[in-house]
């Protein structure tokens, strides 16, 4: 089938999921006892003022009507206004998304680059020394709280060694950020040959990226190993051995046949890792979407929370879609080829 046809079909299949996501986000906030009216009105409001606010927020309407209004707003891009920032939530989110994406990209990229080879190598010699050590490390990675790791790294590399800058934001306060091209301070300063900014941006990036990489590598190592072991015991690898193919060749076969499940897995991991990333942003005051969202939740900025959660969910759906498409392209068995 043609490529454009395929993309269209896949996108259409995702729409029910999108609707579900909007619905769940809507219910998520409504389900709690959190009273947005109380927060907006303040402690000195009268009963009348309460009612007024309630009506203004549309909370008098039956639930299904509220949902339709909400869904309609979302489609038009109106995510309400954050009472913390007094700006439209959509604006807040837009300005911060790229910032988080940068951290996510480097962090997960590094995590995958570390995790996949380790997992593969462990699978080639199961229960050997390397495998046992790697599995322990991976389980350890599952057990370390990200925020604690961030704090420890700040302590060691900033306080003790003075190698890293303080965990505040993406670039030193003394340095001017580079001109906006991609939104990534690092890339933009490199592109504009602004070496001072590049250095500052890089030094601010290192610790959070390493934190995210360590935490994301743990499940990747474990799952890559499991996937590779399954491939190794499959008919095709057994037959490859029977053909007398060299070990190097057999390993290539294992790797290629593991690629699709690994990509799928990393795609599903991204969802959880976005949450972890938010915590890292919080610790390092990264100024991205994660920090914004966490603040909103903790301070009860109800519309902002809704927008934040919705964005995360939509991002996950997008990731699933992209992974689907990538796999369809590289797999000879897919319906595309």
């Amino acid at each position, binding site marked *: 089938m043609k490529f454009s046809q395929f993309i269209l079909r896949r996108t259409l299949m995702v729409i029910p999921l999108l609707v579900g996501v909007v619905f769940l986000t809507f219910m998520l906030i409504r389900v*709690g006892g959190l009273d947005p009216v109380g927060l907006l009105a303040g402690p000195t409001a009268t009963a009348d003022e309460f009612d007024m606010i309630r009506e203004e927020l549309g909370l008098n309407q039956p639930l299904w009507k509220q949902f339709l209004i909400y869904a309609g707003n979302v489609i038009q891009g109106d995510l309400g206004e954050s009472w913390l920032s007094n700006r439209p939530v959509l604006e807040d989110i837009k300005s911060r998304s790229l910032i988080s994406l940068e951290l996510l990209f480097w962090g997960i990229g590094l995590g995958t680059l570390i995790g996949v080879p380790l997992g593969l190598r462990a699978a080639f010699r199961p229960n050997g020394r390397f495998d046992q050590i790697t599995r322990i490390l991976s389980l350890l990675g599952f057990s370390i709280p990200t925020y604690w790791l961030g704090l420890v790294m700040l302590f060691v590399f900033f306080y003790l060694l003075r190698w890293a800058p303080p965990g505040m934001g993406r670039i030193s306060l003394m340095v001017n950020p580079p001109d906006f091209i991609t939104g990534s301070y690092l890339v933009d300063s490199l592109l504009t040959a602004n070496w001072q900014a590049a250095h500052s941006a890089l030094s601010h990036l290192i610790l959070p990226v390493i934190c995210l990489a360590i935490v994301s590598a743990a499940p990747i190592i474990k799952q890559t190993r499991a996937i590779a072991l399954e491939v190794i015991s499959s008919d095709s690898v057994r037959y490859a051995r029977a053909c007398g193919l060299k070990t190097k060749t057999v390993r290539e076969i294992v790797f290629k046949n593991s690629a699709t499940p690994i990509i799928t897995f990393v795609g599903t991991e991204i969802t959880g890792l976005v949450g972890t990333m938010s915590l890292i942003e919080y610790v390092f005051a990264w100024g991205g979407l994660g920090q914004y*969202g966490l603040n909103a939740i903790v301070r009860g900025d109800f519309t902002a929370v809704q927008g934040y959660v919705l964005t995360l969910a939509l991002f996950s759906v997008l990731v699933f879609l992209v992974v689907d498409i990538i796999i369809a392209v590289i797999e000879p068995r897919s319906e595309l080829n």
Partner: protein
Amino acid sequence: MNSTHSDQVSLATRIGNRLRGISRLSPTATAGVVIILLFGILALFSDLFMTHDPVSSYPDRILQAPSAQHWFGTDGNGMDVFSRVIYGAKFGFGIAIPAVIIAVIIGVPVGLVAGYRGGILDEVLMRIFDGLRVFPSIILALAVVAATGQSLINVVLVLGFLDSPVFARLVRAEVLALRSSIFVESAVAVGNPTWRILFLHLLPNSIQGAMAQTAVRAAWAVRISATLAFLGVGIQAPTPEWGAMIRQGAEFMVTGQWWVAIFPGLALIFLVFGLNLFGDGIQDILDPRRRASK
């Protein structure tokens, strides 16, 4: 395969053999159990191990480094960190165990019914679970707890609830596989009522995989509850919960008083690690992919 000697050997020896067998097959499971038991003892008998009262503050000894008197130093309120860390084990278990129990109590029956009945109920449930998967679990837990009220009970309920889809899905998968098997069909043919089939026939056979997950989900519950406390949601200072302690210690990390946040973190890591070791080890044993010895 039963050994013909088993009748003559005493129960104690058989148990010993089984334990030795398990530890040979999976040293990780054994190590995990040891760690969990260690923390269990600390949690149950914390009075024996604490050197000071965990919520008493000594205003003249604020932020003291670890010393002979205060093994883990004191925090910003002058409280003994060591005793607080020991006491915190209670929260680890106190949250994780009920949360996992709730998750199992909700998830397993749902999985049984959804897998056995199928139809609309199954479809709807699966769609809901699929829909939930696009939300990062941390954020979901955080948002719901923040919205529904920040008490300990709430944390346990929310975590249990959010964890149930895992169990439901596992049990459902097993039930689907077993549903068309001979022994279930004969049970139906004989005329057993549905509930009997579900609980006497299907449940014992589908539950194995789910049980292996309990340790891993408990580890998750411990982690998440600490994360919530760290963010200031759920449990607050001066309660000696590890996450809350890390929260308090965060500001001191960059001024050099590392002990306030590091020790609770280490305790947290250790317990979660033990649970993960155990869960991983059990999964290894149950999975045919394990390699045999010799």
